[in-house]
């Protein structure tokens, strides 16, 4: 189970007094629902990058409803994902995952590698400490994973969001606010420094449309989250203010009128509209991310 990767150590978790509450701008219920929706996207992306997808995960993703939602969010999978038989697809994705993320010459989704060029450098220890401080412990899944691996960092935020939602549902706005700050801090110190540039790299280098599109999704979602949290973070992993023209992807037929065809708009809509929040919530329920980490 995903939750077991970042298992809550109750003994270490900070306690917040039951009576402590604070005002929130939106209604607590709406904010809680938003947290859970966001957590769903984090979990989805975590499942994509933490290790090779399982059959259950892919099966859930390839249902017509979810595919339609993902298409609406601007994800354009090719036939290699949409029509390939399940067994062959799993094999192809396992190979692509290895090539991109787990073999020499690839691009490990690990913050230390992205920012310092080497495994197990300062970000690894910093994230580990953060997890510990907030009552989490990293456990091995099917494969060993670094604390600053993309999937784990995303999973961590998902956990905090769900804690925040629970806190709100229990009327504990103080805890929610504290967790929001933790999420912002984590984005500022970690995810925000590398995932946008990294997603562009994977979008460019992926040979399978699943990872290409999920990388696009990650990049768009990261940009949206950063904006929604009003953060100003420089992405040091290839962050460029200007993209050379020859690298710009044409996302629309230039002969057609431009009408909400670009990914950013679609994502923005996806993440803000209540309908889509609900759909993402559903999607979270559909996929079996949790099973990735707990074969037993």
């Amino acid at each position, binding site marked *: 189970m995903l939750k077991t990767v970042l298992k809550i150590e109750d003994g270490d978790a900070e306690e917040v007094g039951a009576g402590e509450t604070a005002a929130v701008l939106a209604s607590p219920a709406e904010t809680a629902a938003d947290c859970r929706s966001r957590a769903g996207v984090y979990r989805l992306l975590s499942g994509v990058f933490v290790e090779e997808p399982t059959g259950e995960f892919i099966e859930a993703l390839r249902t017509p409803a979810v595919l339609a939602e993902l298409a609406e969010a601007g994800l354009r999978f090719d036939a290699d994902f949409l029509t390939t038989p399940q067994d062959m697809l799993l*094999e192809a994705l396992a190979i692509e995952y290895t090539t991109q993320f787990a073999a020499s*010459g690839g691009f*490990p989704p690990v913050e230390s590698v992205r*920012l310092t060029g080497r495994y*197990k450098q300062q970000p690894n220890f910093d994230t580990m400490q953060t997890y510990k401080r907030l009552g989490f412990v990293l456990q091995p899944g099917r494969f060993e994973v670094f604390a600053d691996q993309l999937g784990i960092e995303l999973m961590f935020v998902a956990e905090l969001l769900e804690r925040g939602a629970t806190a709100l549902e229990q009327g504990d706005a103080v805890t929610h606010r504290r967790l929001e700050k933790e999420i912002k801090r984590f984005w500022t110190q970690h995810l925000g420094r590398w995932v946008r540039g990294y997603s562009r790299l994977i979008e460019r280098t992926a040979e399978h449309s699943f990872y290409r599109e999920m990388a696009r999704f990650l990049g768009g979602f990261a940009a949206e989250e950063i904006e929604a949290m009003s953060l100003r973070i420089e992405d040091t992993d290839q962050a460029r203010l200007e993209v050379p023209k020859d690298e710009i992807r044409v996302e629309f037929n230039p002969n057609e009128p431009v009408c909400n065809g670009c990914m950013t708009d679609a994502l923005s809509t996806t993440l803000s509209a209540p309908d889509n929040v609900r759909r993402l919530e559903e999607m979270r329920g559909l996929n079996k991310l949790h099973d990735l980490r707990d074969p037993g």
Partner: protein
Amino acid sequence: MEMPKVTRRTFLKVSATTGAAAAAAPRLLNAMETELGGKDFGPVSGVERKAIPINCHVCNIQDGAIAYVENDRVVKLEGNPEHVSTRGRLCAKGNAGMWYSYDPDRILFPLKRVGARGEGKWKRITWDEALTELAGKLNAALKEDPNTIMLKYGRNRSGGVIDRFMNTLGSATVVNHTSVCESSKKIGMEPTWGPDIETPDFANAKYVLNFGSNILEAAYFHNPLSQRVTEGRIDNQMKIVTFDVRLSNTAGFSDEWVPVHPGTDGAVALAMGHVILRDDLQDSDFIETWTNVTVKELKEHYKQYTPEWASKISGVPAETIERIATEFATTKPATLFTYRGPAKHLYGSYNERSCMMLPIMTGNVEKKGGYCLPRGMGWPQPSPEPGKPKKGSYLSHPTEYPLAGHKVSHLVPFWIADGKQKINVYITYQDNPVYTNPGAMAVWGKLFKDEKLIPYLVSMSPFMGEETALVDLILPDCPYLERWEPESMPNSLWPWLGIRQPVHKSLGESRENRVMMRDIIWKLDPDGKRGMKQFWNFKDGEDYMRQHFDNVPGLKEAGGLNFLKKHGVWPIYGKLDPRTGKVTDKTGREIKAEYGLFKKELSAGDMAGAAVAKDGVISKNGKAIGVKRNGKNYVGFPTGNRIINVRVDKWAEYGFNPMPTFKRVPWHETMKDDELVMVTFKLNVMKQSRTAAVKWLAEIAHSNPMWIGTSTAAKLGIKTGDLVRVESRVGHLVTKAYVTEGIHPRTVAIPTGFGHWEYGRLATLRLKDKKSEASHGQDDPDLNNVWWDDKGVHPNNIIPVVADPIGGSQGWYDTVVKVTKAGPNDKYGDSQGDWEKHYAAYKETMRYAYTGDLHRKMHPEMASWAGPDSVKHKEGGGGH
């Protein structure tokens, strides 16, 4: 009073002759070393870092080192001041060792090939899946013939684990890398005096002859011996003369550099011996007492090797040979050192023996400042141990090379292609012949891509080297900072035991070799019913080390493995003096080495039950334990007859000259005017194939232009930086020229360690490819500063195989080439070898084996030899 007239000439003369007095004069002013090392602090936190002693293993010198760890991460490496050999110093390579652990191209999980071999398509699998698949292949091979399981290793410091593994499987097909290393040096030395290497006492020598060793940069044992060379040269005013085709940094540090034609060092050494014996400068007493020849026999034998004869072959003036021979013989103590220069030729074993005869005939053996035996220490193996395989393996011990005790690994691809031995499973450990061997990709690449010849190929490696990129299954091994390994290396006059210990948790799912091999055996024999599991009874690497070290006498009392974990080395001889850099005893005096090991007398206990033969050999329980000389029972030399064998009778059995001799490389004799000999060499920051991915080292040296002499280059119209085409009989390459006076005019030289096509993004500079333009760390000042675009050109594709028919060594320095300015179709980095041409070279070199048709032609002096049939069924010898 008249003042003495001091000119520069007299000043230098006085300095040279009063060296000993100067050395003994009190020193009240010394360069200050404020810290001895051994501890370190975080610059930000100010907290003392955890210091873990280890033995370095970037190369194979085995320097004592300390890893400083913060947060389970190595942040710094430096020398271990408690280590008697390296005395707190660590070379550039050692300082950069942590790059191996954290390399972003490191293999962290078992990988299974899914495309064609070499296509680069992999699938990550679990250890259980990997072990199950491998066990299946091994089981099938075991059913057919255990010897169809082959293991070839490059660097093996496992302390016996590889042999244990193969013995457990019952396969004798174990092949090493030594024939591309220094095997003919070993085979030249071992039958002569026992061990495979010497320990020159440079620090106390007054005169040193250095034949073809670049000890200040690369050779065995670079760090510890270069310290002693410097001490001898600076503190003891020793003279050092270097014979080398190239002005290496060692040659540059020497008093004299004498350029020799490649492969002719042996002739020069023999001619020096001629001068010494002719002028009666030998140590007759030593020769008569401790060798198996008489002075008269030796004088008679050496008469043929005149300085004029050697001069004609080597290009060294006869008067230079005369002068240096006389200086060497009349300056005491004197020593000699060799490395690949003499040994890496068709008849390298002869060259090595000719060189080592000089300290032997002058009686400089085992004396202070002389030519000493190596000092090492052993350790017991965990019990029980598997027995040796019942059936021999051709690839391990080819019948055509019975004296090559260190094997002939570089001919293995041809023998497999010829069907000499079938292979079902090929396992490789810390090896990369596709890069490091002659023929490189053209030979080994072709072998490994042929799934009929090698049906299943497994690599135990932390990195995707040129070989690993071609395998079917990769098992992720640990780099050296994550391994347990026992160590002892005779790299100074003081013997020691040491360990490598993990300084942090291994990354990802990598497993150290002994654990990996245990897991394979356990998979094959889960319940122990096959009798394999009993030999692999240990919990982890540390447990295995306890079985090695907890009962070593002396060490046991000091604490066994716990002592080694704390200090890294045992014994601790003394304290490092910051003023002198030497290890001193409690009174502050430098610790003294023990000399004259062969003159140790056997005790009464040793002699109890021993028998003394007519020739003085003392035997006990069927084994020679010493030799009687001048009425005393000495331990002698570790040879079969306990003395030095100037005449190696076993060689004569196979039609080789048993006495010191020289054979010129035949194709060097017939070189045309426009032909040159191409040699290779190593720089101080590069080892064989595993340093180009280390940023700190690659930044220092990443390009390898070909050295060419000024006069030769002028004739060819070549200037520094020009592209040149280098053609041998098996291929061609295109590289840049570096024109220099520092090389023999008939030689060109290309440094190795460059021009990788695998081994990660830094070695290949793929991080600069458009697709991967941002594949590296953005915050990292090192990786953001890969400012070079030239990764160099690897020469091995165009180097044909040559095998010394005695020692088995590759003749790295025998390649004849033509060099021209590059043509319009030549591109920098082109490197092409042809399998068919390499195969023809293999067939040619086999003709020099004792079974070949050229053997007798090359040995007219052995006309009375009865031919190969006379020894065909004898078991080979040599090596250890």
